[in-house]
């Protein structure tokens, strides 16, 4: 349960930081967001990643939690990268 929450928080966190980058805004949204929006997205992304650390450490303690957290960060980032590498296919599916 905690693992799923940790993965989900990291996934959303990285997705927000992805959307905070101008290059990826163009790919996913078709336009560039104002830089204030980008900053807000990046901040909330990092906030969610920090939250993931707290959630992961509930129960096993922060020592074990930190090791788990780094693992989930890697997995979540890998998923976001995979999704981003296939963004054209993704968007085509969504539009249909």
């Amino acid at each position, binding site marked *: 349960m905690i*693992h799923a929450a940790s993965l989900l928080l990291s996934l959303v966190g*990285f997705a927000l*930081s*992805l959307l905070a*980058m101008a*290059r*990826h805004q163009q790919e996913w949204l078709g336009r560039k967001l104002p830089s204030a929006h980008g900053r807000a997205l990046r901040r909330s992304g990092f906030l969610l990643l920090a939250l993931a650390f707290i959630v992961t450490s509930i129960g096993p303690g922060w*020592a*074990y939690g930190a*090791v*788990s957290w*780094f*693992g*989930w*960060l*890697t*997995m979540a*980032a*890998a998923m*976001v*990268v*995979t999704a*981003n*590498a296939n963004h054209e296919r993704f968007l085509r599916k969504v539009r249909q």
Partner: protein
Amino acid sequence: MAWLHTWAGLVLGWLMFVIFLFGTASYFQLEISRWMRPELRGGEVTDMALDAAARFLTARAPGAGRWSLSLPSGRGNEAMLVSWEPREGSEGDVGEAPLDPLTGQVVALRDTRGGEFLYTFHYQLHYMEWWLGRYLVIVAALAMLVALLSGIITHKKIFADFFLLRFGKGQRSWLDAHNVTGVLALPFHLMITYTGLVTLMFMAMPWAINASFPDRDALYGASSPAALNREASGNTAPSLPFSGLLDRARVAGDGFDPGYITIRNPGDAAAVAEIWPQNSRLVTRGRPIYLDGVTGTPLFAPSSRGAAAATQDVKIALHAGRFSLPVLRWLYFLSGVGGTLMITTGLVLWTVKRRAKLPDPARPHFGFRLVERLNIGVIGGAPAGISVYFLANRLLPLHLGHHADWEVNSLFIAWGALIVWTIARPAKRAWIEALTVCAILFGMVPVVNALTTARGFIPSLIARDWVFASFDGTMLAMSAACAFAAWKTASHKPRSASRGEARAFVEVAL
């Protein structure tokens, strides 16, 4: 800095690949050991088995100086292993025997080194003196650390391009893949390389010991408290049964999970039981609990090992991940896969980058050919060797002498054969064939397992034997990954240089 990253990464890159590959597999070394001993049914240790172990030791080694009993961990790796040693200065033999953890009966297990070989190989190599292997690994780990730190600087766009992976763009795609596998698990890569050096630090940096201690034994004596021992009294008194001693240890230490028990002078009035915990904690390496062998009362606990030793323990625990529960173990494993892929893409990138600049691509110079051949032979050959190691476990006749040695030899014979084969083939064909061989061999492991034991994939699923089912599943996933890579290589059409040149021409003209 770029040249440092290139050459630190290249020269020992193949050794790093092998260390990462075998080390990653070692996160499941107990599960691999269990798969490689199919005679053994896992399960919780029963009191009946503990009593049977004591009876076995009483009958087999009545006057022994010490009896030891190694309990399988929750991961169910091994048999319950009993061993005995004679008293100092007295006649008697040293021996050990595997017992079934459910019944306590002696089980006949096939002779195998199991996952322990993959683990040992990743820091000590094979077919050479142990110290030479370890020094080679130390040099490779140092080069890895240099390559990682210089890589962060060389590939300085890894954070700006954090999410960037573009397929089908030749060299650009290899660079993306190298950056992404590097940066996504960067905390793991740094941690594993640094803590790996810590595990071998007394060999890497012996001078600190020489400066402070007359010799190595003095260091060990100072850093680990002496075991508690009592002289045998000569009066006989029945020792408590194993189950009673273990229960008392669980009570004496809060949340104590016993993994190993030794009784010194069993059957004597001065018997002492020394009980070690399982390797299940991150922060502290467990310290033993001492109990009076006859009454079971706790004896004084030796002092702790001090802050420096505790720091070293945590680093080693972090490296080996023995404390991790299944989910974290898989995360460790997948991060290790990421590291292995980072090294793979780095090595391939070296050739991709230089192939375009070769004066005559049909006849590359010696250095290029050497790197290309080593890439194919090591990246394709080592996984093939591992799969053959598993196949040999099932296929070599059980009555064969030195069964365990021949399993290991099979690994290197298969690997060597693949190197010889691929050297004789054109590079692209060699990649396709090596990857196809890997796919076939990994795919054969579950099939051969199902044919030679009663513990195939489907029966294991039905019996909810997750270790066996996951092992076979992982082999199938490896097979699929190798097949996919072979198919990708086969269907890859290098974009002709002329097209790129033509486009550049047009752009200039416009």
